């Protein structure tokens, strides 16, 4: 079942140009040059029920702008979108009760009060029945391990604890669609992992459709089977994460450690050297030649250990971004 459908969605922002300096500031009081920037250009995609899709793209690529349009915060300049059959920017309460937005950089919890107070307020705003509220809250506090911190003023919580409470606050009305904008930003590795694991479990259990944007490739790798890559406002890839690897990666990485020092020149004939110390080398080799090179290395050189790895995914994404820039 299609939950989200986006057709030729575009957003153009207008802004004013002002050159640096005081005199130019004075001039800009009288005359300003209006400029336009296409934040999102003719994007199309559909997302089905229960999917967990990752939005990837560098800063300013248009990921967040797309999310803002899908949650009805801003109006598109052109194009259409439908979420759960509704047009988001009409902001109908019946639609708003079925989705949630969590922003890593914006908090909805009341800063001076314990998270529980914000939860109760959300319960009323979303008109969640008492019984449902209790079961959902119990379940969420168990999954997120926040039972102990619900009574502590939010400002006293650590960033990781706060993010967990933010997630709980957004999920209390059991939304069918969840938009996550950088939910793990600024968190330490352990907290990141906790949030990730929670999202994975939650998506499996409740079949909630989730769109996630993140700069951390670990998030995307752990959670999303499908990724949508946006750069300069255009969609440049939409499909399985694994297919992305097949399409863009034709190399493997050989990581070899030696028992004695080896000259760089001997290794250069075998492939491209990515990293080199006399006893260890990271070698980039074309996929179909991997086996052949490995055999050569093992039979000719004093090998202590050899590992055959995939190219790291953030490396792949970086390549795609730089390639699309030069297009």
């Amino acid at each position, binding site marked *: 079942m299609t939950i989200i459908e986006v057709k030729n969605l575009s957003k153009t*922002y207008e802004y004013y140009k002002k050159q640096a300096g005081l005199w130019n500031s004075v001039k800009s009081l009288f005359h300003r040059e209006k400029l336009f920037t296409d934040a999102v250009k003719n994007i199309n995609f559909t997302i089905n029920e229960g999917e967990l899709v990752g939005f990837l793209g560098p800063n300013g690529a248009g990921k*967040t702008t797309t999310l*803002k349009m899908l*949650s*009805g*915060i*801003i*109006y598109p300049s052109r194009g259409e979108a439908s979420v759960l059959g509704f047009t988001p920017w009409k*902001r109908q*309460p*019946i639609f*708003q*009760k079925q*989705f*949630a*937005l969590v*922003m890593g*950089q*914006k908090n*909805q919890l*009341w800063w*001076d*009060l314990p998270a529980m*107070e*914000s939860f*109760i*307020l959300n319960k*009323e*705003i*979303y*008109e969640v029945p008492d019984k449902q509220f209790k079961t959902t809250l119990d379940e969420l506090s168990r999954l997120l391990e926040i039972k102990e911190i619900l009574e502590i*003023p939010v400002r006293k919580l650590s960033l990781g604890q706060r993010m967990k409470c933010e997630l709980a606050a957004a999920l209390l009305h059991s939304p069918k669609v969840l938009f996550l*904008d950088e939910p793990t930003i600024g968190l330490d590795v352990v907290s990141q992992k906790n949030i990730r694991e929670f999202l994975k479990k939650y998506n499996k259990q409740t079949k909630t459709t989730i769109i996630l944007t993140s700069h951390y490739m670990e998030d995307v790798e752990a959670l999303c089977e499908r990724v949508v890559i946006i750069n300069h406002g255009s969609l440049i890839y939409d499909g399985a994460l694994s297919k992305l690897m097949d399409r863009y990666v034709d190399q493997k990485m050989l990581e070899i450690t030696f028992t004695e020092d080896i000259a760089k020149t001997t290794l250069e004939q075998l492939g491209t050297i990515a990293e080199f110390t006399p006893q260890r080398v990271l070698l980039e080799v074309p996929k179909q030649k991997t086996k052949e090179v490995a055999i050569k290395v093992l039979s000719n050189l004093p090998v202590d250990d050899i590992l055959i790895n995939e190219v790291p995914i953030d490396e792949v994404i970086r390549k795609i971004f730089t390639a699309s820039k030069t297009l």
Partner: protein
Amino acid sequence: MHKFTTLIQTAWQRALTHRFSIIAYRIGEIIEVIFLIIMWSSLYEHTAVISGYTLPEMLTYILVGNLITFVTRNFLSDFMAREIKDGTLSLFLVKPISYFTYACIREFGRITMPFLLSLGTHLLIILFFWHRLIITTQVSRLLLLLLMVAGAFITELLISYIVGLIAFWTDEVDGVYTTINRLKKFVSGGYFPLSLLPSLYIKISYTLPFAYSFFVPTQLYLGKISNTTALKGIGVQIIWIGLLCGIIKLVWRRGVRRYEGVGI
């Protein structure tokens, strides 16, 4: 209905965590009022009547007027402008409650405690000076006064909301807000009774919403205007409330289209 009471309660709880600052503000208010009392008392040393006001009338004017100002004011524009400017508004736009309702009810909850404390401190001052003041016990007049003050509260809230909405265009509203407040204090009779000015000026003030937060209700309290005039005044307030609601609808619809939800 439940969501409104919960929102007010949440705002109250928040206010309680800021009790020190709220009490500290009241000290300034008391000092200002006492200073005004001293100033007018010395102005009356050589004369019994200024522009038709005796000293007790003048002191009553100041105390009652200030009390009304304190219970009708709000700090909504500043709060709103910040939410629009830094993109926090996005959090409310996705919720199944209108921002207008949310912001106004939250503001009501936010100012309840300062309101009660101001009421308390002013009643204390009134009690202290009561033998030099004019005390009214006419029920119909007091009821009209209550209505007018309620109207003034709503009008002020709506005006602040409009000022807050300007943030969609300019990002900062402090300048507009401060200017409006200064003008308001002048045309509402906050510095001195408008009766000291030419009658045309007073006539204009009666058609603007500001005088109803100070001058008109105190005139009513002092019995310087009739109950019929007061009723007419309440009529003017109702027209203003309708007008302001219309303006809000228009401005919001245009403003929210410009909103970019920056900062996320």
